[in-house]
């Protein structure tokens, strides 16, 4: 379980998150919805350990990884625009990322590419990828290592409906395996197929919650 306790964050006196509290449990998909600048991406970065909260804490099964200056193991994310090596192919980029922890091999990488409908373009250079293909590769890198916690920030930007449905089906399967999946979007309809618990963000606060 992820427990977010009284998290506040501001940048240069501009309050981005104001006393956020939530409990995110295994076997659920959570949707963070809100207009651009409502604070959802900052909260995702805090959950990932990329930003430190000004106050409050994020606990993973009761453990605060920030306290020990560690990143959360078994958490993968697609945050904002994904960046990859432009002179490598899609497959080589995933291989380079997989090599950091050496947990998976060719089969898992190819499987992730198939899930996001990018397998046929895996040998193209990243520089030749369209916006949608880059986004698919971003999702593939997040799912390829079968993480327990999956965070996807605006994952469906620029992706065609057919692939959105395929990825949504995959996410529902992963949810039933007991994973915690958090997806942010500024369009509520993006999350319709995912039976997600929705948190509506406004001005750095959770304005509403829909279960």
């Amino acid at each position: 379980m992820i427990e977010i306790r009284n998290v506040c964050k501001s940048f240069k006196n501009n309050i981005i998150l104001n006393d956020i509290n939530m409990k995110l449990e295994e076997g659920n998909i959570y949707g963070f919805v809100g207009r651009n600048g409502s604070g959802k991406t900052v909260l995702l970065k805090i959950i990932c350990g990329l930003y430190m909260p000004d106050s409050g804490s994020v606990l993973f099964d009761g453990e605060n990884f920030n306290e020990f200056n560690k990143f959360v193991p078994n958490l993968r994310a697609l945050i904002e625009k994904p960046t990859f090596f432009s002179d490598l192919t899609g497959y080589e980029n995933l291989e380079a990322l997989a090599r950091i922890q050496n947990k998976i091999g060719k089969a898992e990488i190819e499987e992730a590419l198939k899930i996001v409908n990018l397998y046929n373009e895996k040998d193209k250079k990243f520089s030749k990828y369209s916006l949608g293909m880059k986004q698919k590769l971003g999702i593939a890198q997040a799912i390829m290592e079968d993480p327990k916690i999956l965070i996807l920030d605006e994952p469906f930007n620029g992706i065609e409906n057919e692939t959105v449905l395929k990825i949504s089906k995959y996410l529902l399967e992963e949810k039933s395996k007991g994973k915690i999946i958090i997806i942010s979007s500024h369009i509520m309809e993006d999350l319709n197929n995912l039976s997600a618990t929705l948190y509506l963000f406004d001005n750095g606060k959770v304005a509403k919650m829909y279960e």
Partner: protein
Amino acid sequence: MSRDLISPKKMIISFLILSFGLLAAFMSPTNEMNFWNKLLEMITNKWVTIMLLVAIVNATTYLNSDERKNANFLIRFQNLSSFLKKNIDQIWKIVLIFILYIMFVSFFGSFIFCGHNNIENINYLYYNIPMWLYILFYVFKLYFFMLGMGILTYLLQFKFSNYIIVILLMVFIAMMLVVEVSTKIDDIYNMPILISNYFKIIEYSTFFLEIFSNLIQLIIMNFVILIIFNYYSNKKWRSKII
């Protein structure tokens, strides 16, 4: 394909930079016709040192590129410290490859320049030791100091823009070209502290004193690196790195 080291484009640029330095060293006027003297002259040439440093800085800018500093990359590490160590791990390999290239070209350059009749071993000018031993010592010294410079420039790039790094590099080059140490160093208290002098041929009263001075200089350099490394390993730097 491995992407543990450096992009092929950056590698080609770095080798071109190194080749310019080596060409300048090869073409520099000399009366030296002994192979070992010419070899020492080439690897200690200030343009070789300067271009080696430029090539290393060029390589470390790649380690600091957006592709290696984004969220996807960073959260796969245990912490910031292991992320920095992974990149530093690349720097020692890069510096080793560059030094081996310099040695290879200098060796054959000196052989071509002097011919096969002039390869008898001689003693080093300042100490009563064989020239090959001093060359070996200098190569090790160059490797460790350049490794330190590479790590320093890599770490400084988190705080300073590339423009500032280029300015610092220019200052270093100017110091290499202008500041000279002409006096003989006869005790440890007179050893040069200025970083640009670490790469120059300086006369010490004994070989042992030169080794000892260089060790102290290396310890000072590593101490500075350790302070900066620990500073950036702190969790508050996470958001600044990506």
